[in-house]
């Protein structure tokens, strides 16, 4: 487990962590709590680290060793406290603080290596030649037998160190930690380095009536990323295998010009895509105990982040080269003041809170792109040594959205048995129109502790039984940008005026002056059951949510609009599901213990409508919109769409022609026999033609499970997750099986035998995506310590990505099956080779 995201995987029902099946540490990580509820964005849950608003990228830099606890809030009443920011769920992280038990120091270290265990099996050099000869095709023979996976990969290395010390007393304590990670992945150019520093202090005063929390958290990371992942893996698979691994004696690369969509993978390793991120945030929280049952808290935080991107393409990849530098900075100012009251009268207990908060963000950016380099030696370090920086290649930006909220909430409980809570919240944003600035989002919930009823008090084997239900609304603005409602203008081109090139200005988008909050209403009902001293625990919840006034870039007619998209609140979408969690402790003895945690979530998403009223006009939208297609040689445009957004269906469905089998074609191979579904006598592959809904891209069911077993000082833990009910379009298989690309491009080992000379898409390549994946297996040994100075010592060994059980024929079913984007559900030549991580861990506490 390298970071906090690994900890989240498999922990909670309804939470899906996707790492795009490629690089587990890439910042592409996305988390979905209860699926996608908004098309435009804002589906990533809010991450709160010690009260400070954060994001998933920062979460991924947190060390598991620094985490005290994390809580996932999903229901509207639970997230009400965070308002619109928490509309898509909240992950609350509490980090470790000083314990107040005197000086402690601990070290955790992890040392591992990564090795590739599976990659695509393409024709080898001799097989390639034999196939070309057999087919009588004109081919290029470079005289070598190269497996390009060897060219781009290496044994990955990862080591990380985490040192923490804490001290102080009950009234005043601190904790400081330092973390460092160095990770060289299995792909030669792909490295990560991360340094994390964290300091927290707590001080109590006035007999404990005032508690002050102060914290600083910062990280600095360097990322050497792959410039174009698909280009690299496409080239690695499809390059002519008879070419040498590197350049010739004169430094020239042998070109395979006819394969214009790929390059020699070795050349691509010279491209650079580096970034450097710095993040600093600090917070100060004060809690006053004003009266016995009245508390005032004040919290303020400041965050600064800076990202520098640098990219470079040498002249042997792009004819005039390409250099890009970008600097992006962000500052967040956040304050929250809350007054809370609680009191108990006899059997009644009341808690009430009012709070207000304000968040101001400032985002600035500056970027330059240049072409026409005269030497490759500068890489991206001297952008002045370029000849061309045309219009649009240099830019800067400024944005300062702000958010203000007022909230009141109260919870009343009777005999600790019945509880009712209600919150009323008002969120205001600068980004919606002036007459819709504030949105009102109420919520209410009820809970009933049945175990406390007389009825169950004598039933000993039932240790817990609680019933809860709630209904609430929350607002979402995620994914929209500042100034959407303003009729503003920007530079939009450069023309010759009176002989001089002149920058012109004008509108660059349709303006929607009536933009308002997207609203999500959620109903949930569930129970928690504990049996036999909670050795069997069962929790289950059903939810239904409906997103209305759905924010989306709707298609609008041109004319009368000048531009074809309009950010508006028109459509609606629903999500529903059941979540189930089971925790069993079959063995619980002094020397032996076993824990089984299992969670499962069933989700159903439906796009209800994209049509409705806008400014008194009835807007109609196409019911079928393509969102994902294939890319590659012979696959640019045309009838190449695979994944669609269809009204009445889940977001992301496969809408494909139906293939009934293979048939011989007139060029000596086989073609897909496509069915004339509408029986009009012609086969029409276009969007409105012979296609049908062939399945959904997002899983219907996801599971996560942790199993652990301890015997004396030894323990074993396994983490497993899985997903079911979805499909994957195996575009990689389609492209690398199609013999019409041969011999310009290499093909899979079984392609010559299949002899398919056709690259039309159809359900022939649509496969079930079900899988169970064993994420981690860890074996640990807690060394029994008699020493007074060493409190604990633990040694462990772990394997990550141990095994995947699946019927999917491609490299891995763990592609993007969650995030609605152009890659959803499509395995298309971009999959990272599969690798395992073997690591040894050492941790000691003094």
């Amino acid at each position: 487990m390298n970071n906090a995201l690994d900890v989240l995987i498999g922990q909670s029902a309804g939470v899906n962590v996707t790492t795009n099946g490629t690089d587990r540490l890439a910042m592409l990580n996305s988390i979905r709590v209860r699926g996608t509820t908004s098309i435009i964005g804002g589906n990533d849950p809010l991450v709160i680290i010690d009260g400070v608003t954060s994001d998933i990228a920062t979460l991924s830099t947190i060390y598991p060793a620094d985490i005290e606890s994390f809580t996932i809030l999903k229901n509207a009443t639970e997230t009400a406290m965070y308002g619109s920011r928490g509309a898509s769920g909240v992950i609350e992280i509490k980090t470790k603080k000083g314990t107040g038990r005197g000086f402690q120091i601990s070290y955790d270290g992890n040392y591992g290596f990564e090795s590739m265990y599976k990659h695509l099996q393409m024709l080898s050099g001799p097989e390639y030649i034999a196939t070309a000869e057999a087919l009588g095709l004109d081919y290029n023979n470079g005289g070598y037998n190269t497996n390009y996976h060897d060219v781009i990969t290496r044994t990955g290395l990862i080591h990380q160190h985490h040192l923490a010390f804490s001290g102080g007393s009950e009234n005043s304590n601190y904790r400081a930690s330092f973390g460092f990670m160095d990770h060289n992945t299995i792909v030669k150019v792909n490295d990560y380095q991360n340094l994390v520093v964290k300091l927290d202090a707590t001080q109590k005063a006035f007999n404990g009536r005032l508690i002050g929390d102060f914290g600083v958290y910062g990280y600095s990371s360097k990322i050497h990323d792959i410039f174009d992942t698909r280009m690299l893996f496409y080239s690695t698979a499809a390059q002519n295998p008879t070419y040498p691994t590197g350049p010739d004696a004169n430094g020239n690369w042998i070109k395979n010009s006819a394969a214009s969509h790929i390059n020699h993978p070795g050349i691509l390793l010279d491209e650079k895509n580096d970034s450097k991120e710095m993040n600093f945030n600090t917070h100060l929280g004060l809690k006053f105990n004003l009266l016995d049952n009245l508390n005032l808290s004040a919290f303020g935080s400041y965050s600064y982040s800076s990202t520098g991107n640098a990219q470079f393409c040498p002249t042997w990849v792009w004819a005039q080269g390409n250099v890009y530098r970008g600097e992006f900075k962000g500052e967040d100012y956040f304050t929250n003041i809350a007054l809370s009251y609680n009191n108990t009268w006899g059997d009644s207990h009341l808690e009430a809170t009012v709070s207000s908060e304000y968040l101001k963000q400032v985002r600035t950016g500056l970027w330059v792109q240049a072409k026409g380099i005269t030497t490759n030696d500068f890489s991206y370090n001297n952008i002045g040594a370029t000849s061309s920086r045309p219009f649009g290649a240099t830019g800067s930006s400024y944005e300062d959205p702000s958010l203000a909220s007022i909230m009141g909430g109260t919870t009343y409980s009777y005999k600790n048995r019945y509880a009712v809570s209600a919150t009323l919240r008002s969120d205001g944003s600068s980004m919606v129109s002036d007459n819709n600035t504030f949105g009102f989002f109420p919520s209410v919930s009820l809970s009933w502790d049945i175990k406390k009823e007389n009825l169950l008090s004598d039933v000993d084997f039932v240790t817990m039984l609680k019933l809860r239900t709630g209904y609430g609304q929350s607002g979402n603005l995620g994914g929209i940008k500042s100034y959407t409602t303003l009729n503003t203008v920007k530079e939009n081109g450069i023309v010759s005026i009176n002989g001089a090139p002149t920058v012109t200005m004008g509108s660059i988008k349709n303006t929607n002056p009536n933009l308002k909050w997207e609203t999500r209403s959620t109903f949930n009902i569930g129970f928690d059951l504990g049996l036999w001293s909670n050795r069997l625990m069962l929790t289950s919840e059903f939810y239904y949510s409906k997103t209305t006034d759905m924010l989306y870039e709707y298609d609008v007619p041109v004319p009368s609009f000048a531009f074809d998209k309009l950010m508006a609140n028109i459509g609606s979408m629903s999500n529903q599901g059941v979540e189930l969690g089971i925790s069993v402790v079959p063995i619980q003895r002094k020397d032996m213990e076993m824990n089984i945690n299992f969670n499962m979530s069933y989700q159903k998403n439906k796009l209800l409508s994209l049509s409705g009223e806008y400014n008194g006009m009835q807007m109609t939208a196409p019911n079928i919109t393509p969102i994902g297609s294939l890319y590659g040689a012979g696959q640019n445009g045309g009838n190449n769409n695979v994944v669609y957004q269809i009204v009445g269906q889940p977001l992301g469905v496969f809408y494909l022609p139906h293939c009934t089998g293979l048939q011989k074609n007139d060029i000596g191979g086989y073609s897909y026999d496509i069915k004339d579904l509408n029986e009009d006598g012609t086969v029409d592959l276009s969007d409105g033609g012979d296609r049908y809904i062939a399945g959904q891209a997002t899983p219907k069911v996801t599971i996560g499970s942790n199993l652990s077993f301890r015997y004396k000082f030894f323990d074993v833990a396994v983490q497993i997750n899985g997903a079911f009910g979805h499909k994957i379009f195996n575009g990689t298989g389609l492209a690398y099986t199609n013999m019409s690309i041969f011999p310009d491009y290499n093909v899979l080992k079984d392609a010559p035998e299949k002899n398919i000379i056709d690259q039309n898409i159809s359900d022939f390549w649509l496969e079930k995506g079900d899988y169970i994946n064993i994420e981690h297996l860890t074996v640990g040994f807690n060394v029994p310590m008699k020493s007074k100075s060493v409190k604990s010592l633990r040694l462990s060994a772990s394997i990550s990505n141990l095994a995947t059980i699946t019927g999917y024929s491609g490299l891995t079913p763990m592609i993007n099956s969650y995030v609605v984007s152009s890659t959803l559900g499509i395995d298309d030549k971009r999959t990272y080779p599969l690798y395992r991580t073997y690591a040894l861990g050492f941790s000691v506490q003094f």
Partner: protein
Amino acid sequence: MRRFYNIFAIAIAMIMTSCLTEDPRDQLYEDDIYNNANNIYINAVAVLYNYIGGSADSEGLQGTCRGLYDYNTLTTDEAMIPIRGGDWYDGGLWENMYQHKWNPNDLPLYNTWKYLYKVIVLSNKSLSVIDKYSHHLTIEQKTAYEAEVRAIRALFYYYIIDMYGRVPLVTSYEQAQNEVLQSERSEVFRFIVNELQEVMNLLPNERSNKMGNYYGRVTTPVVHFLLAKLALNAEIYCDDNWTDGVPQNGKEIFFTVDGEQLNAWQTCIRYCDKLAEAGYQLEGDYSYNFAVHNENSNENIFTIPLDKNLYAAQFWYLFRSRHYNHGGALGGSSENGTSANISTVLAYGYGTDKVDTRFEKNFYAGIVEVDGKTIMMDNGKPLEYHPLELKLNLTGSPYVKTAGARMAKYEVDRTSHSDGRQPDNDIVLFRYADALLMKAEAKARNGEDGSLELNEVRNRVGMPYRKATLENILEERLLELVWEGWRRQDLVRFGLYHKSYDQRIQLPDEGNGYTTVFPIPQKSIDLNPKLKQNVGYK
């Protein structure tokens, strides 16, 4: 106390709301950019010239792919992009273009529609802006600015009716969505002609193709050329029932020109003559019009100014046509696509002993040399284009990579950016040789002899005399204007576009000519259900 709380609550609400207003710094409000005459010219008039060329698919009148140019060229007997093994299948896009099997759902058709109408709506907006801010303008400025915008708008409507037939005529920025209805093609045609005639004398009577104050602008001669074009195609544009088999007669279509009633052919001739009067003439060297520095051509009338260091517009066609190694030898790269059809190279006399002199200026065929050196392919063999081996699907052919004569025409700019897609040659949209051929054709159609004009064009390239029959004129238009994006319009005018030609076989139901206009994009209909699909399309 209660009062205090009330004041407190109101104060908080006010503070919060005031903290929630936006104050953009990297954008401006419209009042700031239309604040004086000069800025109104830049941001309401000249801004529209950004859209003449393009740098993305389906945008620009010429230069990019999957847009106007492709629909006017790759659907004809002039050229095609054949399927070459793994390349150029692209979901059947190019094959369907050549065979006329396009579909209302085709994305490039929708993108082209969006591009053309974007410019219409922005032109309407400019007119509205000029009116709103007219207090910054003198009467002369206002008239001149409006004239230029209206001319640009008419230019785009010309391309729209040529492509889509029955289309919405939107002439005001304030026009509500539910008032966007289709007009008959003839009605839009009359609107375009009237607009152009009204504004032509308000525009600067200057050369647009030369660098300087009028570079790239729609000036009087540009409008004259366009009016000649419209008159020449009047029979087509005035025919609102193009599938009923009843053609219009150009001799019975009248225009008022300089106070005279003239029929379509006379009108065309009159506007062509105005270009001659303005001093346009054939360049001695055919190729000079397409040179890297072609800004001083006396023949070019309207061009898209290109400069790799200044402007965003691009020119992809050489890049798209040449073999990979051919592009590589020229310092860029290439896509090995577009090829001249066999019927085209045969028209030039390729393979005979009487090859038109323009063949080698317009095409690469046979073994290719760059800087005196033969280009070698990756397999070590010389690169040789085989014009007569072209087939729609070359997969499995020994000439899969080399079949087809490739596009030359434009001088290669060896310092191009973007792998050869950003050269400095201005893209030629209108030129005088075309005006001469238009005049020859109009004369022939009006019962006169256009041989003088036809042979002025032929003489320049050293080709022998031909009589100005309609057939010869159509062939001359191919020989002279190949790769310039006119072929579809010419074939439609000659009633040949929907027939079988070259390797294309007429579609079973195509006899009524419904494919002479493209379908209204399905998405446009979905978004505006008041629009009706063109006849013959589902």
